[in-house]
C-alpha cells in the first residue's frame, strides 16, 4: 500500500498532465468551450423540469417556490453525475488504456486516479456553474453548503472503490461493463433524484433505505436546496460502506495486478 502510494506520488506529473489532457480533449475545438459546463446541466434540468413539473405536475411537498424543483433536480443530478462518471470511467479505464498498459511500465493505479482527478475537477466546475444558475433563480448559497466537500469525498470514495473493483473484473469478464450500464440506469431511477423521497410508497421504502446512494445524494439536496445539515444517523452506513469498498478495491487490485495485463 505504501509503495503503491509512493509510486503514485512519483508519477504525479503524469497524473497532472493527464487530467489536464482529459479536460482539454473534452472541449477541444468546440466554440463555446467551457460554457458547455453550464449549458449541459441547465439544459438537462430544464428538460426534466418542463416534463415533470409542468406536464406531469410534480411538486415538492412543503415548499412553495417555483424554482425549488429545478434546484432539487440539479443538486441530485450533480451528486449522481459525480458518482456515475467515476464509476463508469473506472469500469472501462483498464480496457481503454489496454495497449499502453501492455507496452509501458508505469503504476497502473494512476489510471483510476486520473479518472478520479478529472471527475473531481469537472464536478467542481459543474458546482460553480449551477451556483450561477441558482443565482438566476434567486437562490443564494447558505452556510450548509460547506458540507458539500464531505459529500464529494464520500461519493467519490464509494464510486472509486466500486468502480475499480468492477473495472478489474471487467478486464476478465467483459459482461460486467454491459450489466453495469443497465444497472446504473435502474439505480438512477431507484434513487430519489427526479422525484422526492417522500413519494416512495411505504412498502418500497426498505429498498431506498438499503440504497447507499440515497443518503449520499441527499447531502446535496439538503444543503443546496434547503440549506440543511445532513442527518448523521442515516449517513454513517454509506460512509462506512464507501471506506470498506475503497480499501477492498486496493486489496483486490494488489491480487489482480500481476494478471491484469495478461488478459488485456
Amino acid at each position: 500500500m505504501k509503495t503503491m502510494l509512493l509510486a503514485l506520488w512519483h508519477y504525479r506529473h503524469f497524473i497532472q498532465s493527464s487530467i489536464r489532457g482529459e479536460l482539454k480533449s473534452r472541449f477541444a475545438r468546440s466554440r463555446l468551450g467551457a460554457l458547455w459546463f453550464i449549458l449541459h446541466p441547465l439544459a438537462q434540468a430544464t428538460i426534466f423540469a418542463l416534463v415533470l413539473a409542468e406536464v406531469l405536475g410534480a411538486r415538492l411537498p412543503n415548499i412553495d417556490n417555483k424554482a425549488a424543483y429545478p434546484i432539487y433536480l440539479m443538486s441530485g443530478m450533480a451528486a449522481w453525475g459525480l458518482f456515475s462518471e467515476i464509476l463508469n470511467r473506472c469500469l472501462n479505464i483498464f480496457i481503454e488504456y489496454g495497449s499502453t498498459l501492455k507496452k509501458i511500465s508505469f503504476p497502473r493505479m494512476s489510471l483510476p486516479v486520473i479518472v478520479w482527478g478529472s471527475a473531481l475537477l469537472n464536478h467542481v466546475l459543474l458546482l460553480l456553474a449551477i451556483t450561477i444558475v441558482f443565482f438566476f433563480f434567486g437562490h443564494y448559497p447558505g452556510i450548509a453548503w460547506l458540507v458539500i466537500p464531505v459529500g464529494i469525498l464520500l461519493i467519490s470514495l464509494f464510486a472509486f472503490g466500486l468502480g475499480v473493483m468492477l473495472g478489474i473484473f471487467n478486464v476478465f469478464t467483459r459482461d460486467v461493463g454491459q450489466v453495469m450500464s443497465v444497472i446504473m440506469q435502474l439505480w438512477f431511477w431507484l434513487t430519489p433524484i427526479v422525484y422526492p423521497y417522500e413519494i416512495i410508497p411505504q412498502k418500497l421504502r426498505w429498498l431506498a433505505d438499503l440504497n447507499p446512494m440515497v443518503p449520499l445524494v441527499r447531502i446535496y439536496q439538503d444543503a443546496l436546496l434547503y440549506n440543511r445539515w445532513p442527518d448523521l444517523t442515516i449517513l454513517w452506513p454509506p460512509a462506512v460502506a464507501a471506506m470498506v469498498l475503497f480499501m477492498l478495491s486496493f486489496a483486490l487490485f494488489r491480487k489482480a495486478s500481476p494478471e491484469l495485463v495478461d488478459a488485456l
Partner: protein
Amino acid sequence: MSNVVLNLHNVGKCFATYRSNLWRYLRWFGFPVRPEQEYWAVRDISFTLQAGEALALIGQNGAGKSTLLKLITGTLRNTTGNIAVNGRISAILELGLGFNPEFTGRQNVYLSGGLMGLSTSQINEIIPAIESFSELNEFFDQPLRIYSSGMQARLAFSVATAVRPEVLIVDEVLSVGDSYFQHKSFDKIRQFKEKGTSILFVTHSMGDVRALCDRVILLEHGKILKDGTPDEVVDYYNALIAEKENAEVNAEVNVEQRRKKNGWVFTRSGSFRATVKELVLLDKETQEKVETARVGQKLVLKLTALIKEDIPRLVLGYMLRDRTGHVVWGTNTWHTSQIVNDLKTGDEVEFRLPFTCTLGPGSYSFSPALVSSDTHLENNYEWVDNALVFDVVNTDKGFFIGTNWLDAVFQISRR
C-alpha cells in the same frame, strides 16, 4: 569494466486459463484453485547483460521475444525466477503510446515524459534537445493531430531517447520515419552504446543484427536455443528456418555448427541426400589450390557433389559474403538453367565456376547449397555456411577501398 546491468535468472512466464473466470477470482482470495491449462510463453531464461553490450533477440513469431521484452520492461509480471535491473530501463515497444492528439508536441513531451516517470523540472531540462532532435520546427507547438505519422514517430523517438537509460529496449521500431531519420536514430542508439547503455532489441532484420549487436540470443518455443556472436547465431537461425520448412516435407532435421580456427562459423544443415564432397578454390592456369587470392587473379571454384540417395533434380547455389556477413554475390544453377536431373545413389557431379577475382582486399567466404529448386526451402540437401574461406590481397593494383575492384581509370585533362 564488467558491469552487469541486467540479470535474468530462470525467468518464466505462464499464461493460465481457467475453466471459468470465477476460479481465477477465487484464487485471488486464497482458494487453492488449479488452472485448467497453462501456457509457458517463456521458460528458464537466464542471461546477463553487461554495460555497453548490444544484444539482439531473434526467433520466429511466437518464440517469446516480445513476452520477454515485456517482462524486462515490467509490463508483464514473471511467474518464476527473477529479473534484476541495475539502473533505468527505457523501452521503445511502440512509438507514440500515451500521446494526446489534442496536445501540442511540447505538451505531449510533458505527458509522455511523465509517463516515463520524469518530473516537470527534468523535462524542462531536456526539452530543447528533444525539440532539436525531432526537427519538427514550427510543428512542435502545433497539436499532434495534424502531424504526419512520420512526425509523430520522430517526436516519440526523441522523447524515448532524451535521457540516456542504462538499458534501452527496442522492439522493431527503427523502421519508422524516412531513411534520414532512421539513420539518425541508429546513430543515437550507437552513441548510447558507446556511453555504456546496454541495448536489447528484437528484430527480424538480420542486417540490423550484424550492424549493431555484439551478441545474439535465439529463442524458440520460449527457451534459449543459442546464445553467441551474431555470425554464429544468425547462420544457425537461417539454417534452422530452412530445416523447419524442409522438415514439413521429409522430417529430416540436421544442423551442425562449429567455429573454425580462422574465426568463421561453419554451419552445415540439410537432409544430406546430396553432400559436398570437395570444395576448393584453384588458380585457373596452374590448377593449384589458392588460399590467398590476388585482386584480378583468374580463379576456379571447384565443387564435387556426392549423391547419397536417388534425387530427381540438383541445383547448386553459391553465396559469396564478406567478413561482416553482407552478401557480395550469389546465384544458382536454377537461375542459369543448368539443372542436373535424375541422379542415382553414388553419382558424383563436378561443378566448375571460373571467375576473375574482382574483390577488394579482405576476407571472404563461399557458402554452397545443394538444393532441388531455386530456394533452399523446398528440398535442402546440404547447405554449408562459410564452407570455403579465403583472403584477397592487393598486390599489383593501385590502392582502393571497398569490397569490389572496378577497372575504373581516371581521365584528367587540364583546360
